[in-house]
């Protein structure tokens, strides 16, 4: 295109077991799952009763009572992450052209908790179908339409450039960063607040995944419930969280001597056109997305030093994904270390893609590969190096992340150490 390149200059994360970037990093490198019996409601009537919950208290992040009343948890978590990422980037409000700063926030299910809680009130616990508006909060439009997440970030950071929520289900968090990358390439912005947030741990979400047996029924030992690539895996563990990256045009970052975590060198998406939830075992379309990302980055498969897997821990996903890596990476698939941090922080739907990209940025900066927790009995169908249990040291120049989601959407993104 125009030759404009985008780099990551700030990282903010709120994840289960880690309410900041550094706590998150320590948690995933330590490989200790932040998964417990659901505490935010009584999970007894449900098939899956465990989740990766964040100990996120909005009042501790300086949000006003009005903000807490008006905004869903997914928005508050995104705002807290954006604050951390912005501070990390070294950008200061007075030194920015606010017209050239935009927002791209991923979210799969938006304000689910707020919508469900308020419905329970307005319908009087489901007694009335024709709900009465006078029993509903006045700010519910912002919950109905999750664009509010992007608006609030734009207002908070004074971003007057393009703003939108990207909502492609469980690939939202990769696609939102990809959208930011595209806008910077095309000259529509110089700085993008890019990330994703989801807070889906509510009765309706748990029930809907119960209904299709996508989540694990292993309730007795929560810390061992998320087992990507393990022969005993029984489904994913629902999670929540957020990550925001500051994505900046390279020259803009260099001109202010910014610390650069990495460059976005490849970003691709494909759809399988097959099924809303089912995956064919050949991994063809995810493989296509990975190959396209490699082409954009002008890399050979052997150049990839780490893969952050989708690794949800469902039977079908982990096989599908293993096939995709073999297809796209060829012989290199057997050499490259791969792990799924969902084993530690669960699957936070749209948010997890951005959280995993944050992990890739930190892997490149710090030279440590987080492990796949609970991978003690490898599934013979998942016969790649999935970094069982213990973190490793390795210098990584190029990290690949893959995502797969409902709707058949498959996404891949490559972060690279900045080349001189």
């Amino acid at each position, binding site marked *: 295109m125009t030759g404009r390149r985008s780099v990551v200059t700030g990282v903010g994360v709120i994840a289960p077991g880690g309410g900041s970037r550094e706590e998150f990093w320590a948690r995933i490198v330590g490989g200790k799952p932040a998964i417990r019996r659901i505490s935010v409601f009584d999970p007894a009537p449900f098939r899956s009763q465990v989740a990766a919950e964040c100990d996120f208290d909005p009042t501790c992040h300086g949000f006003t009572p009005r903000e807490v009343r008006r905004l869903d948890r997914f928005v508050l978590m995104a705002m807290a992450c954006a604050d951390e990422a912005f501070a990390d980037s070294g950008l200061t409000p007075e030194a920015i052209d606010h017209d050239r700063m935009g927002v791209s926030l991923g979210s799969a299910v938006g304000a689910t908790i707020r919508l469900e809680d308020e419905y329970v009130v307005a319908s009087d616990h489901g007694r009335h179908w024709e709900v009465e508006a006078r029993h509903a909060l006045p700010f519910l439009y912002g919950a109905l339409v999750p664009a*509010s997440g992007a608006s609030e970030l734009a207002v908070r950071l004074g971003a007057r450039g393009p703003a939108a929520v990207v909502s492609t289900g469980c690939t939202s968090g990769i696609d939102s960063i990809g959208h930011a990358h595209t806008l910077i390439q095309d000259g529509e912005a110089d700085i993008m607040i890019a990330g994703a947030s989801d807070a889906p741990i509510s009765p309706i979400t748990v029930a809907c995944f119960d209904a299709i047996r996508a989540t694990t029924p292993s309730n007795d030992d929560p810390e061992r419930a998320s087992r990507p690539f393990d022969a005993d895996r029984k489904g994913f563990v629902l999670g929540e969280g957020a990550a925001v990256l500051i994505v900046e045009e390279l020259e803009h970052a260099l001109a202010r001597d910014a610390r650069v975590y990495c460059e976005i060198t490849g970003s691709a998406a494909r759809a399988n056109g097959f099924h809303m939830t089912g995956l064919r075992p050949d991994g063809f379309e995810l493989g296509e997305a990975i190959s396209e990302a490699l082409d954009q980055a002008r890399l050979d498969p052997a150049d990839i030093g780490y893969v952050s897997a989708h690794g949800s821990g469902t039977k079908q996903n982990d096989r599908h994904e293993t096939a995709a890596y073999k297809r796209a990476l060829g012989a290199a698939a057997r050499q490259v270390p791969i792990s799924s941090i969902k084993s530690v922080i669960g699957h936070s739907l749209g948010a997890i893609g951005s959280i995993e990209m944050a992990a890739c940025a930190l892997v490149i900066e710090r030279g440590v590969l987080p492990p796949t927790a609970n991978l003690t009995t490898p599934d013979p169908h998942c016969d790649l190096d999935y970094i069982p249990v213990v973190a490793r040291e390795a210098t990584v120049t190029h990290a690949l992340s893959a995502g797969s989601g409902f709707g058949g959407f498959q996404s891949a993104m490559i972060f690279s150490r900045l080349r001189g």
Partner: protein
Amino acid sequence: MRQRAVISGIGVVAPTGVGAADHWFAGLAGRSGIRELPDRTAAGLPVRVAGQVPGFDETEFVANRLLVQTDRWTWMALAATDLALADAGLDTRKEFPFHLSVVTAAASGGNAFGQREIQALYNEGPRSVSAYQSIGWFYAASSGQISIKHQLKGACGVLVADAAGGVDALAQARRLIARGTGVVVTGGTEAPLSPYAMACQAGQQTLSRDPDPATAYRPFAPDAAGHVPGEGGAMLVVEEWRRAHLRGATVYAEVSGSAATHDATDATRPPAQSHQYARAMREAIARSGCTPDDVDAVFADGAGDVFADDLEARALREVFGDRRVPVTVPKTMTGRLCSGGAPLDLAWAALAISHGVLPPTVNVDAGEAARRHGLDLVTEARDGSLGTVLVAARGAGGFNAAVVLKAHAYDE
């Protein structure tokens, strides 16, 4: 060389009609699809009227197996997509699937589906929740179903920016075409008239309380009462121009420059100034290689709220100065369709360019709009050559977006 994107197919499911032709002729005649809500729906709501599509029969477009898996907004999206692809004369099964994509705008998702399943959960317990809740309600439901039905396997997307999202989706379609995608199906539909979705909208200050369909939604009128909600939208086939020509497709218009901005002031109330909205329009025009003097007509946002209308008139003055560019708000015939509204305006603008007629703004007096805002508001269908048309949109929370459509010449 930069690929150019053209609109080669239009599918409409809107209060003005199902199918581009029905919609277009109803619009020219000024036939409004805003009507009274059923008593049951309106009970307990401040709003009495809405843009509705009573003539839409989902079983004509959606297989029974799929009907139970999807919400009304997806039925409308699937129908509009079928109509758009048929209009374009495109059989996607004969194309290379990775060169085809779908990018939708979404806003309220499958809200009726979601309401029904939450109702079931609280009345009857977790086991009564449908296996399709996980795919029927979420914002990517329509994009996913369209991708599967038509084998659109390239980079797909879903953008949420309230009523501005449809312009963003078209802009994203153009970016995909510029990167080598052959065809992008883009647009959006909305079905926000279910009881809970209406309750969620009831808190909006700008919702019209006027029970008369003829006066409830009158943008730029001095006594504008607010806006009327509505359902429906449109899907467009956007295609790389050379391949459109090679297969002899009819081209409605070319998608030229676009821009999006955000007010970034206070998400709970309208901004105090119009600069960011004006900047979106100005940048879209500049990115099209044009000047404001080249613009033949504007499809305005038309909030229908006195304060927001004043802001839009000021933004238009900031961009066009004293020149009185023709402005139309044909959505006065449909109400505001959340994320379906901008795609419908884009369909209207593309049809206007290809027919050389501007559809009217209904129920507003042109003289009043001229006196109050200095606007040349088009209140009767108006003939005239349209080479360059600006479509502008705003979304609740501070979103602004604009895009230029141009008459397409084969010989460039």
